[in-house]
C-alpha cells in the first residue's frame, strides 16, 4: 500500500507542472493585457510610452520563457508574486476569500450528503415504486436546475414574500454565527441541491448494483437482518463511487461558484477568478488555477487513500 501511495503522491508534481505550463501560456493568448486595461480606464486615453513603462515594471516586456521561469521559480518557493491589478501579494488576495469559499463548499457538501445518501438508498430499496419515481424526479430536477437560477429564486422569494434580503457582507462564523448563517445558508442550499442530485443518482445506481451482488444474496441466505446487510455490506461498498463524486464536486466548489457568488454577492474565489480574468491579472489567474488544480489533485490523493482503506483489493495489491 505504501508503494501505491508513494507513486500517487509523486504523480501530483508532473500534473501540477503541466497545469502551470498550460495556464501560463494560454492566458497570454487572450487579447488585451493587464496594463492596457488598468491604465485605459473608462476614458481610455493613455500614452504608449506610459504603457511601455508599466509593462516593464511588471516584467511583461521580457521574453515569455523568461517570465515563465521567474514565475515557476516563485511557485516552487510558494511565492505566487503580487497581483498585477492591485499590487497586493497574491496570497493576501486569496486568503481573504478562501474561508468563505471553503465554508460554502463544506455547507453545500453537508446539505448534499444529508439529502443524497438517504434518498439514494431509499430509491434503490424501493426500486420502481412511487418512492423511487419521486426521488428520481427530485434528483433530475436538481440536475436540470442551475444553482444560480435557484439562487435568484431564493432571493426573489425572500424579497417579495418576506421583504428581507440576506446580508450582503460576509461575517466570519466565529465573529457572529447567526449573521454568518443568514448569509451563507441560501447559497449552500442552492448549490447543495444540485450537488445532491448528482450524488443521489450515484448512490441509487451504486446501491442497486451492490444489492444484486452474490455476497448480499449470501448474507440474506444466512438470515442476516436487512438493517445489518445494508449498513455492513451494501452501503460500505456502494459508497466508493459516491465518495468520488462528492469529493470531486467539493473540489469544484472551491473555485467554481462563479455565478452563484455573483447572485448572492459572495466575496469568494469564484468571483475573484472572474475579476482576475476580466482584468487579465496574469499572476492572480495563474495562482488561482494552481490553487484549484491543487485542490483537485489533493482531493484525488485523499480519495486514493480512502479507496485503499475501504477496498482491500487495493490495500493488498
Amino acid at each position, binding site marked *: 500500500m505504501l508503494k501505491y501511495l508513494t507513486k500517487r503522491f509523486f504523480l501530483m508534481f508532473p500534473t501540477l507542472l503541466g497545469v502551470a505550463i498550460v495556464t501560463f501560456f494560454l492566458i497570454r493568448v487572450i487579447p488585451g493585457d493587464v496594463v492596457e486595461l488598468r491604465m485605459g480606464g*473608462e*476614458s*481610455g486615453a493613455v500614452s504608449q510610452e*506610459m504603457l511601455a513603462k*508599466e509593462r516593464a515594471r511588471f516584467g511583461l516586456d521580457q521574453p515569455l520563457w523568461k517570465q515563465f521561469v521567474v514565475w515557476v521559480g516563485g511557485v516552487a518557493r510558494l511565492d505566487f508574486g503580487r497581483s498585477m*491589478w492591485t499590487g497586493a501579494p497574491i496570497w493576501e*488576495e486569496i486568503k481573504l476569500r478562501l474561508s468563505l469559499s471553503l465554508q460554502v463548499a463544506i455547507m453545500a457538501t453537508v446539505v448534499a450528503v444529508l439529502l443524497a445518501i438517504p434518498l439514494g438508498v431509499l430509491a434503490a430499496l424501493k426500486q420502481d415504486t412511487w418512492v423511487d419515481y419521486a426521488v428520481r424526479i427530485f434528483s433530475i430536477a436538481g440536475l436540470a436546475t442551475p444553482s444560480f437560477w435557484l439562487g435568484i429564486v431564493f432571493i426573489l422569494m425572500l424579497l417579495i414574500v418576506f421583504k428581507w434580503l440576506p446580508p450582503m457582507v460576509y461575517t466570519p462564523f466565529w465573529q457572529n454565527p447567526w449573521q454568518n448563517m443568514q448569509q451563507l445558508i441560501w447559497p449552500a442550499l442552492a448549490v447543495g441541491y444540485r450537488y445532491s442530485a448528482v450524488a443521489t443518482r450515484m448512490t441509487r445506481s451504486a446501491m442497486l448494483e451492490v444489492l444484486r451482488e452474490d455476497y448480499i444474496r449470501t448474507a440474506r441466505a444466512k438470515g442476516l437482518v436487512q438493517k445489518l446487510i445494508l449498513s455492513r455490506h451494501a452501503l460500505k461498498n456502494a459508497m466508493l463511487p459516491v465518495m468520488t463524486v462528492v469529493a470531486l464536486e467539493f473540489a469544484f466548489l472551491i473555485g467554481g461558484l462563479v455565478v452563484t457568488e455573483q447572485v448572492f454577492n459572495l466575496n469568494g474565489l469564484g468571483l475573484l477568478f472572474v475579476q482576475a480574468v476580466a482584468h487579465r491579472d496574469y499572476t492572480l489567474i495563474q495562482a488561482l488555477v494552481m490553487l484549484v488544480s491543487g485542490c483537485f489533485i489533493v482531493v484525488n490523493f485523499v480519495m486514493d487513500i480512502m479507496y485503499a482503506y475501504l477496498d482491500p483489493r487495493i490495500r493488498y495489491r
Partner: protein
Amino acid sequence: MQRRSGLVLTLIAAIVLAASLPATAQETPRRGGELTFVVPSQPPTYDGHQEETFGLIHPVAPHYNTLLRVDPTDKTGTKPVGDLAESWTISKDGLVYTFKLRHGVKFHDGSDMTSKDVKASYDKIMKPPAGVKSLRAVAYQTVTSVEAPDPHTVVFKLKWPESSFLLNLASPWNFIYKADIIAKDPKWYETNVMGTGPFTFVEHVKGSHWVGKKNPNYWDKGKPYLDGYRAIFISASAAQVAAIRGERAHIQFRGFSPPERDQLVQALGNKITVQESPWDCLNFVSFHHEKKPFDDKRVRRALSLALDRYAGAAALSKITIVKEVGGVQVPGTPYATPPAELEKLAGYGKDINKNRAEAKRLLKEAGVPDGFSFTFKNRGIPHPYEPVGIWLIDQWRQIGLNVKQEFIEASAYHPMLKRGDFEVAMDFQCGFIVEPDLDLVRFVSTSDANYGRHKDAVIDDLYSRQARATDIEERKKVIRQLEKRLLDDEAHVAYTIQWNRIIPHSSKVKGWTITPSHYLNNQLDSVWLAE
C-alpha cells in the same frame, strides 16, 4: 386702502411663510446614521493620482479634500468652488493663479495642512518621482511651477492661459496628501489613507466593503452630518438592485438602467427617490480613416445622416441609459449646443427622410454600391452598447447598407481600438467634469485616443484656440466651429445619444445632488439621512 392692502400683503407673507416652514424644518439636516452605498467596481489602489475608476472615487473621496471642488449643489457639475482654497485671484494675463488656503485644516493624524502639502501633492501629480504613476500629468502641461510663499498661499504659474485650469484644479482625483509622507515614500498612498476629509478611514476588506467614520475635527464645523459610511462592493447589477430593494443599501452613485429604476420604484413606491441627469458619457462611432471607403468624408457623413437621433432617443431611453440628443458638450451645461444650432449639423435635422435621401446621394457619389456590407465592432457590455449598436445597424440598413455587428469582450475592446483593427467601431468617452478641454482632447490628431486616426490640422488649431480663449462667448464660438468640423464637414466621428444618469435612491438620503459625472459629488460632507 393703503392699510388694507398692507394687511393683505402681510397675510399673504404669513401664508407663504407658514407653507414654507414645514418644508424648511424637513430639510434641516439630521445628524447621525451610517450611509450604506453600493459600488459596482473596486479600487485597484488607494491613490487617486494614479487611478481612473469610480471604484476608487466612491469609497475613497470622503477621506480627502481637493484644492477646489465642483459645487456639490450645482446640477451641471461645472462650477468650481473652494474646498481647501478659501479664495483665489487670477492675474490679468491669466498666467498666475494665487490661492489662499483655509486656516485650521488638520490631517487625520492631527497635523496641520499647509501650502507645503498642496505643493507636494501637485508636484506628485505633475512630475511624479521615478516609479510612481500619474495619469494626469498631461493635464497640467501649462503649469511652469507651483509655489508656496507662505503656509496659507499657493501660487500656480502658467506658460499660457488656459480656460479649463480652474476646473482642472477641481478634479475629484487630486486629493491633497501630506507632504512629509510623500517625501518619505511617494508610494505610501497606494496602500494607505490619510487626508483632511470629512471621514476618517476605518477598514477596507478587499472585494467586500469599505468603512469610514466621521472626522470629529473636520474644518467645516458642523459637518459631516453622517456618523459614517459603508461602501459595499457589488459587481452584478441584479444584486445591486436587490441591495437597494431589500434596503441593505441606500444608494448606488454610478447609475441604474430605466428598467431597474422602474423595478425599484414599483417595489418601493415613495421609499425611493429618483434623480436623473444627462451623463457626461457618450458613445460615438469611430470610422477608420485609413480604410476604404471610410477615408471618404462623404461616406462618413452619410452614415451620420442616416441616424434618426430624435426617434432613437425616444425609443432607447425606455430601455437603456441614453436620453438626450446633444453635440460635443452635455446638454444643459455652459458650452452645450443650442438646439437650433444643433439641428443645422448633418444628421441632426428633424426631417429624417431628407437626411436619408442626402445620405443615399452621398454614398452613390462616393461610389458605394447599394447593399454595401461592413463590420461594425461593438463592446460586449449590455448598457448602453448593445441596444445602441442594434439601433445603429437598423438606421444604416435604411440607407441600403448591410452591416454585421461583432461584439468584442469588454476587456479586449480597448486593445482592439488601439491596434486599429476595425473599419467602423463603437467608441466612447466619459469625463469627470464637463469641460470642453477634457471632452475634446481625444479628437486632436496626436491624441492617443484618436482611434479613427484622422489627421486634421484645423481641428488641432480650433482645439488649441478654444483652450486658450479667456472670453466665454469667444470660446463658445470656437467650440461651435470645432463641432461643425468634427461632426458635419469632416464627420470624423458620429455622435449617438447622450447617456442618461439615473440614480434611484432611498428617500432617506438627503443633501446629495446628481451631476452629469459619476466621479463628482462623492465627498459626502453634506449628505444626511432622514428618519
